[in-house]
Each structure stands twice: as C-alpha cells, then as structure tokens.
C-alpha cells in the first residue's frame, strides 16, 4: 500500500529539515501537489554497461556512484524536501539504490524480496506492479554480515536482481513479467548472494557470499538471455577451479589455491565474491574482490590461504584470471573485503594509466594498475585512536588467546561503497572507525551453521565512530573529512552539482559540498540508511534524489529487534556499539524521494 505521510514543512532557511514532524500514517498518500504539476520527459537511467547509448544528463553511473545531473546544486539543495515515501513493509532494506526505468521507479525490498514498480507519471507515486519470486526461508538464518546490494539493475530491456537465497531473476521491463529465475547459490551450503549481477559484454556476472558459513567463494557468468551458467571459477582450490592458466600474472607454482591450505581446508576456505564486480569494457576485464578466508581464527589454516583477501582481474568472456593482488595472505583479521573497486583512467606519475582504486577494509587505499595488477600506492585514509598493532606477535590472534584493540573492527574500515568523481579524481569514502577484541577459538565446520572459530567484541572510541573522507587519488591525500557520531554505513553519491549525499545509522540523509565538505542539508528518515542514495530525472524533467532507508549489512544485524545488548558478543560484537544509536522509529524499509519545491 503506497503511503506518504502528510508533510508539514516549515518554511525557513534551516538546513536541518528533519525538524519536520514525521508522522507516518497509513492514510492514503496526500502529496504536495505543487511538486509534480508539470509532466516531464521520462529519463531512462542507462544501464551500467557502456555500450548502451548513455544519455548524457540523465544517469547515475553505478560503477562510480557519480551523477551528471546538476539541477540540484550547492545553492538550492537546502530547499530539498520530501516529495513522497513508499513503505515496503519488510524489516530493513537490502542496500541497493531505487532504479528509474521509463516512468517507473523500481525498488527491491529486503528478503523475502518483492520488486515494486512505482509509477511517477501521475501526480502521486502509485504502485503499478510488484513481483515476488518464491523465497527459500533457510536464507533468513544466513543474512548476517555482508553488505547487500541485490539490485535491481537494468540491462537492455530487462531488469535483473539477485536474491539472498541464491537466485538471479530477470524481469521484462515492458510487460512487467518474469523472464527467467535461475538458482546459482545453495543456501544449504551456507551460500547466499550479496550483490546484483554486473553486465559484461554478453554476460551477467555474479559472485556468492557466505564466508561466515564456510562457503567457498566463486564468481560465475550467466547468459543474459536464458540465465544459463557460462563459466564458474572459485576463489580457492586447484588452478583449474580458480581459472588460472598460462598467462596469469604473477606466475608461480601450480595449484597454489590448494597448496597454500592444509589438507582439504580450502573446500571451506571462504574468499567470497560479495562486493560489486567492476567491468572495464575497453580491456574486456572484470575486477572483483575475494573475501577473508574461513574460519576467522588463523590457527587451523596455516599457509598463505591463496586467493582470499585480494583483488582478481578476469577475462569477461572466459573468466580466466589475468592477475591477482594478494593484499592479506594468511589473513590474520576477518575484515569484510566486499567494497566496490572504482575504475579511473588518469595520468599517474606523468603517464596515462588505467587505474583501479581499491579502498580496502584494512584502512588503506590501494591504487592498482588495471592492466598489470601492480600496486602503485597504498596510503591509509583513516586515523585511529589506537593504531592497530598488527605485526607484533602478541597481536596475532591465536586459539584461546585474546587480542585487544585491533583496529579496524571486523566489518572493516569502509562502511559502504565509495563514490568517485572522475573529473576531479576525488574519492568520497564512507568510513567506520571501530576497533575490536578478537579471541581465536577452535572452529568446527558443520554444514549450514556459522564457521567462525572466534569470539569478538567491537569497541567504540565513543567520540566519533565514523567519518566521510574526501580523498584525492592522484595527490594521495585527504582533502577534507567530516566526523560522524556513528559509523557511516551507507554508500555515497556525488553529483555534478557539486554535492555529496550519504546517509547515517541514525537515519539522516545528508548532503555536503563536494569541494569543501561543509554540510548543506540533511533530513531525518525513520530507519538507518545503509543503502545507496541515487538521483534521477523524473517524468516532469526535474531532478529528484531518492534513497531507501532500512537496516542491512553488519550494522543492520545489530539493529534487529531481538538483539540483547547485555551480551557484549551479540550481533558479532556490534550490539553495544550500535545500541547507542537507539531503536529506529519504523524499522521497515521505506523509499524516500526528495525534490526541489
């Protein structure tokens, strides 16, 4: 049921619009008529792949989360006001941005998923159709600690989205009917999907999640027409499984994927591909992260635990691995490595280079040459009250030995996916500054149950646990950073209008000046914002900003209603830190659309 609260907006130039008394009522939506009176040409937001003709002024590039729209800019952003909201009725959200497709706005709810299409043509946003694939409720138990961006994404004339219980669904946008629904991941093995498929030349590429359940990471390509799996490669195991052939760089001994593990530990070795998979049409390469090895306790998995905790480059057509950068061989700490890589073509030390910008969960920003996989720069983008003393012996987590004040905490230094403004070469990073105490325990693999082998307690510095950092990739320094009370767990959006949008855990959508970082506007929604804010041009030709508020990912886990903060290890140790945020007024996922009056 579409509902939009009656909004009483007090005029007044106060940047802080969330004085608005937000009355969530179930009364039929009464919309401020004045916003949508003029009809506008519907802007289709182009799909991610570049070979589609990308209409210049309309889209948000999902690879870099930057938008070329400039109607809303520094000067008028403080007049931004909510146009309508849509309540999905599911607890929490799943982190993807709403997608504009013709005159419809597509929103995917949290698990069990429903794809809502909201028509923007008439004065109020009315639900034109919805589609709910069948859901395997076992996946409810597996929704734990990976940031989920399950879609929808538009490719050609179809809409695709992934589901938590391991399905990829294709929907025909014109006739609003499902085309195919393919199961690629098996929740029984602990495998889930965490990201929407990425469109490559003719394929859809998707990777699994489930490190915490001992699921072995893999990446697969599906045929866009029928959903048939074209190729599938794993993050661990012999070269033939991983897709390593002769022209793999760095050349090394064979089958490192299984020889760098004891016995058959690689079969439950983790290394999930839960983050956004970047695609470079020019080089025909696909870049993706591999998650931390399983279990968290390094004792039962001596050796380099090859191909986990690193960045892979693969050929889009065959999936053959071109190069791999091992950031944390034999990873001592279970940092979630599912953050998006950003492609940047820029001059580097005089010569134009194809760069891959990888903000890593360990708090460093790696700049890698996309063609060769050589690390060009690795600078720390975050400062900690207590620096992580990783190298020293007593800081190495071992069985029955507790290591204290390890920073960053297991969710990693990056709270969400960064945004890259390709013109200025500036990266806007949503940062989480939490630390943790970690104690290794003996890990016992039981299929379908959590395979952690560690007790963890996340500790907060109780002045500011989060930040948004503007980082100049070329000059390798932080331009500005804003301190946030709580970890910033949302993705970031940068617009040509010189604005940076991000959301906070206590539900505020904020806009700041991309140049100087001064806060310009914020709005208090009813649930924590852990998703991707987006902007689009409505049918009336006016620019709107939209975000789905609702808890998801590791911080969302700690927001569940039943979490009891008297147990310091509840919600993987996050319970006490997130408890300071307080309970959201309305935990269900809600779409907010803002526009200029």
């Amino acid at each position, binding site marked *: 049921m579409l509902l939009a609260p009656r909004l009483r907006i007090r005029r007044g130039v106060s940047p802080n619009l969330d004085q608005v008394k937000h009355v969530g009522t179930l009364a039929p939506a009464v919309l401020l008529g004045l916003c949508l009176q003029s009809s506008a040409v519907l802007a289709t937001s182009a799909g991610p792949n570049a070979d589609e003709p990308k209409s210049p002024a309309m889209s948000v590039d999902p690879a870099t989360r930057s938008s070329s729209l400039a109607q809303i800019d520094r000067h008028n952003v403080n007049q931004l006001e909510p146009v309508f909201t849509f309540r999905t009725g599911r607890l929490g959200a799943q982190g993807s941005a709403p997608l504009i497709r013709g005159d419809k706005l597509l929103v995917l709810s949290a698990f069990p998923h429903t794809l809502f299409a909201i028509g923007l043509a008439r004065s109020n946003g009315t639900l034109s159709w919805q589609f709910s694939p069948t859901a395997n409720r076992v996946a409810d138990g597996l929704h734990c600690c990976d940031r989920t961006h399950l879609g929808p994404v538009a490719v050609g004339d179809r809409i695709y989205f992934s589901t938590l219980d391991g399905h990829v669904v294709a929907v025909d946008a014109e006739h609003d009917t499902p085309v195919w629904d393919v199961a690629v991941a098996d929740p029984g093995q602990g495998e889930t999907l965490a990201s929407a498929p990425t469109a490559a030349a003719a394929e859809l590429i998707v990777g699994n999640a489930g490190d915490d359940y001992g699921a072995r990471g893999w990446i697969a390509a599906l045929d866009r027409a029928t959903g048939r799996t074209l190729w599938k490669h794993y993050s661990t195991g012999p070269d033939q499984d991983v897709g390593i052939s002769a022209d793999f760089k760095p050349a090394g001994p064979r089958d490192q994927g299984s020889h760098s593990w004891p016995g058959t530990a690689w079969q439950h070795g983790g290394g999930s591909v839960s983050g956004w998979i970047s695609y470079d049409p020019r080089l025909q390469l696909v870049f993706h992260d591999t998650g931390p090895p399983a279990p968290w306790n390094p004792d039962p998995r001596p050796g380099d635990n090859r191909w986990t905790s690193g960045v892979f480059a693969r050929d889009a057509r065959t999936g053959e691995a071109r190069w791999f950068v091992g950031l944390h061989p034999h990873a001592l700490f279970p940092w979630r490595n599912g953050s998006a890589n950003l492609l940047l073509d820029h001059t580097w030390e005089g010569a134009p280079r194809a760069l891959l910008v990888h903000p890593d969960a360990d708090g460093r920003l790696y700049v890698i040459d996309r063609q060769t996989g050589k690390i060009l720069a690795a600078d720390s983008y975050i400062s900690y009250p207590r620096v992580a003393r990783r190298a020293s012996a007593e800081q190495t987590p071992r069985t*029955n*030995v*507790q290591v204290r004040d390890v920073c960053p905490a297991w969710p990693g230094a990056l709270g969400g996916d960064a945004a890259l403004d390709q013109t200025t070469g500036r990266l806007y990073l949503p940062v989480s500054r939490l630390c943790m105490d970690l*104690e290794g325990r003996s890990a016992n693999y039981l299929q379908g149950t959590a395979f952690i082998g560690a007790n963890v307690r996340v500790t907060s510095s109780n002045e500011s646990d989060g930040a948004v950092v503007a980082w100049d990739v070329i000059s390798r320094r932080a331009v500005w950073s804003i301190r946030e009370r709580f970890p910033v767990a949302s993705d970031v959006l940068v617009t040509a209008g010189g604005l940076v949008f991000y959301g906070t855990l206590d539900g505020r959508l904020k806009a700041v000046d991309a140049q100087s970082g001064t806060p310009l506007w914020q709005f208090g929604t009813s649930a924590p914002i852990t998703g991707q804010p987006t902007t689009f041009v409505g049918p009336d030709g006016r620019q709107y900003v939209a975000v789905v508020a609702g808890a998801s990912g590791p911080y969302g886990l700690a927001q569940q209603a039943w979490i009891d903060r008297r147990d310091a290890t509840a919600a993987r140790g996050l319970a006490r830190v997130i408890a300071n945020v307080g309970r959201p007024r309305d935990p269900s996922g809600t779409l907010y659309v803002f526009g200029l009056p």
Partner: protein
Amino acid sequence: MSDSRQPGVSDAQLERPELESHLAATWRTPGGLWGVLSTVDHKIIGRRYIVTAFVFLALGGVLALLMRLQLAGSERRVLSADWYNQVFTMHGANMMFLFAVPVMEAMAIYLVPLMVGTRNIAFPRLNAFSYWLYLAGGIMLWTAFALNMAPDVGWFAYVPLSGPQFGAGKRADIWAQMITFTEIAALAVAIEIVVTVLKQRAPGMTLQRIPLFVWSMLVTAFLVILAMPTIMIASTCLILDRLVGTHFFNPSEGGDVLLWQHLFWFFGHPEVYIIFLPAVGMVSSLVATFAGRPVFGYLAMVLALISTGVLAFGLWVHHMFVVGLPRVGESFFTISSMSIAIPAGVQIFCWLATLWDGRLRFRVPLLFVIAFIITFVMGGLTGVMVASVPLDTQVHDTYFVVAHFHYVLIGGAVFPLIGAIYYWFPKMSGRLMSERIGRWVVGLLFVGFNLTFFPMHVLGLLGMPRRIYTYSPEMHWDALNLFSSVSATILAAGFLLFFIDVIRSLRRGPQAPENPWGASTLEWATTSPPPGYNFPRVPVVGSAQPLWDEPESLAVACGLRVDRRELLITSVVSAQPQAREASPRNSIWPFFAALASTLMLIASIFTPWAMVWGSVPVLITLIGWFWPKGDPEDEG
C-alpha cells in the same frame, strides 16, 4: 562466681588443700551440655581437638584402603572414575587440612601451657571458637562426601579443572569453603600459641630454657601465620571466579593459571613443615626423656628449627618444575630445596649424638623415634632427589613422589605423633598405655608402612602417574600394586591396634603417677590429668631441665588471686613477671559465633548475597562475645 570467698585473696595466704579447693571452684568447667559448649579450658578443647583429628585420620585411612583396593589390579571397577576422584581428593584434603595440621596444633593447645607453666592458653575463647569452626569444616566436607558432592579436583584443586568452566556443580566450592574453615581455625590457634609462649612463660624460663617442643610449636605457629593467608586468598579468588565471575585465573581475560599454583604452593610447602616441625619437637622431647640426658646441642637444634621455618618459604616452586618456568629460576629453587635438608640433617645428627651418649630405656615412645629416624631419613633423601630439576621432570606427579611424601609425612610426622601419644597419654588421661600392645603397634606400623610405600618408588620409576583410578594390564604394574595393597592391610592393622590400645587404656590402663617417665619438663610437675588450674602455684624455673635439677623442691611464685581466674604475664626474653592477667571465663559466645560464621560460609556457596546477610548474625555473636563482662581491670 567467687561467692563464698572474700574477694582479693591471693594464693600466698592459703594453705595447699584450701588453695586447691578455691582454685578448683574458680577454674571449674560446669558439667552437662552447657559446660561442653562454653568451656574455655585448653585441656578440654585440646583433648577434643586430638580426638576429632584422630577420627578424621581413621576416616581418611578408610579412604586410603578404598584407593588401594581399586588399584590392587588393572582395570578394576571397585570405584568408578568419579568416585575415585572424590575419594583421592577427600583422602588428600582430609589428611592435610583435617588431620595433620589440626592434630599438631591440638597437641600444642594441650601441652604448651603446661610446659611453659601457665594456667590457661592465651585467648581461650578464641581457642573454643577455632575448635567449633574446625569441627564445622570437617562435618561440611564429610557430609558433602556422603552426598556425592565431595570435591573431585585433587587436594590442590588446580585451576582450570577446579575453575568455573570445568568444575561442574558445587564440588570445588565445597573444597574452597572447607579451606576457609580450617585455615581460620589454624590461624587462631597459631596466634594463641605465639602469645602463650612469648608472654605467659613461668618466671625464670628464659629463651635458653624453653623446651624444644615449645620452640618447635612457636616456629610452627609463625609458619601458620605467614602461610595460611596465601591459601585463603587463593581459595577466595577461586570461589569469586566460580560464583561471581571474576577473572583471576582466566588466561584469555588477563588472568593466569599459574597464579593459582604459585599461591597454593607458597602455602603448600610451609604447610608440610607446619606438620613436620611439631613432630621434630616431639622427637626431641622423647629422645631427651628416654636417653636420660638433655638433647645434644640445644642451640643448634633451635637454630635448625628456625632456619627450617625460614627456608620453608623459599622452595615452593619445586612443585612446579615441569610447568615450563625458566630453567635458571628453577635451578635457584633446586638449591633452596636441597639446602633445607641441612637443618634437618643437623637435627638428625644431634638426636643420634644424644642417643649415642644417653642411657637408653627402650620404651614404646623411643621405638617410635627409632622408626621415625629410619623412615624420615629415607623420605628426606628422596626429597633431595626430587629437588633436582632434571630428575624431577622424570618423577614429578608419579608414585615415586607419592612414596616420598608418605615417607616424610607418615614416617616424619605420624610416627612421632603416635610415640608422643604413648608418651603424653598418662598426663592427658591419668592412665598408662600398655607396653606390650605398643610394641606390636610399632612393629606393624613400621613393617606395614615400608612394605606398602617402598614399592611405590619402583612404581613411580616404572612410569605410573599419580591420581589415576586404574591402569591398563599391559603396563605390568599389577604385581607391585597388589603387593602394596596387601601390605596396606598390615599398616591398617597397626593403626587399628593403636586405636584399640587407646580405648582400652582409657578404661583399664594402670593409674599414672605425676611423672611416670621421669621427664624433665614442667607438665610432669602437676597431677595426671592436671586440674582445671594446672598448677596450684605458678612454678619458677631455674634451668632447662627443671624436674631433673630440682626434683623435689620446685620453687613457686605467689601473688595470683584465687577468687578470679588470673595468670602471670612475664617478659619475652628473660621471663620476668610483669603483670597478673585476668583469664576469660567460660562463654557460650564463641560457639554461637562459630555457628553463625558456619551458616554464612556454607550459604555463600549457594548465593554470594549470603556474605551480606550472613554477616549480620556473625556481628551479633561477636558483639555478644566482646561485650564487657564487668571484670575489674587487671592490676600491675
């Protein structure tokens, strides 16, 4: 109280028979239950202590037989694993905490006031309180055993096995609380002994004239005062870890498992010297009497006692040679552990010299001394062996060590103790024990002991670890274990015969004169058994052997009042009379205080709040105890 007699009459003004009747009335312990519960007479409480301790010895002995029965053959099912763990823990805890330390202190409670020539022990009401607390601790432990709740973690209760995670139920808490009971009792008695020896000696008994037994009890008392607090801290930390959730011994939250071992053994080794030194004192008394001459090298003996006491605190890590401490540190403890054999050696040589030069009368106590010397020297030498770090890595926690400490404990402490019972039984009960049965007891004990425990040296070298409830047949330990178990019956027969002799002699033993053995110390200067007031008039001592040097005319000091319980306070070094001190009368409050603290301590196993609410009745009883009774202040 002193109704018929005029107040302020001193013992100088009365003749002997009239004096004795007055003193008897003043120092009288009423009969019936009230008298039993409220007595403060060190002789009654001392006798009670000794009897209770020997009852616990008997019970502990039965447990030992049960263990030997289970270990007589491989894979026997006499006792299940759980029961065997409870039995061997009870055997250890009962023998160490409920028999050995209390019986030695009980002998001191009875004998020290008599040997230093005073009327009652210092702080007699504290003495009563300590007995009731000790009895309550013993009853609690044995009731728990009857209820299948006995501790099953060893008498040393190493963490983490006795800790919160692996010590299921309330068993380890019972152990920790039993420690609290017995250690408060031991501390109380130690303080009384120190004050009695230093301040209430007969005039003229300078430091050089104190009997060697009293010296050994003084050193033991100081050992108790310095060692017991450590185990009380350790058991309190354990019970806090288990019931309140502190992390003293939790390695992952900053605690340390070895902290427990250091705390326990810092008390543990002085504990075994607390048991051994009184026995040394008894041997000195027995040797002097039955060799007919003072012990050779009095000064050497006293210095040996004191150096043993001091060194006892410096060698506890020899119990922890295999826990992985740095080797150099351990070697230091090798040297300190071996060097404690030197004062022990001095004492042995002095006794041998005394025996060499004395006119020996082969009565039963002397036979026990001979058995003691042979057995203890072997135990001491195996002690030197286990003091060496490398050697200890092979024999630690094996039956070699079981043999070693039984040699030094049974050989070194129980033999002299039983000899001392034969020696002082006439004084305590007024009846002589039978020589004939005594000789059988010595023979059975000596033979039984050696046949039972010598093979254990071999078993240890054969690789048999301690505290195993059974062993596999292919280990070839069956023969030696069976031999040891069978010989244990001889040892048990010896103890049984001893108990029979005690009970028989109580009723039908011949009447004992004042000084049946012709000994030289003051306790033989009064009747057997001594009256409530011990001495009609406090004796004055002229030499180290008062009864030998002036057998008939023992000088006495006068001036103590008759109508009020008074005793003489003398200076520490030269024992010059300083003041007449009022000695407290019978009082029921120590019994009530013990009862209240027992309820508090037992309830605190079940809820930590019991410490809060339980302390209210304890406070009330203590107030009742110390409420001024209106006695006039003591005159100078």
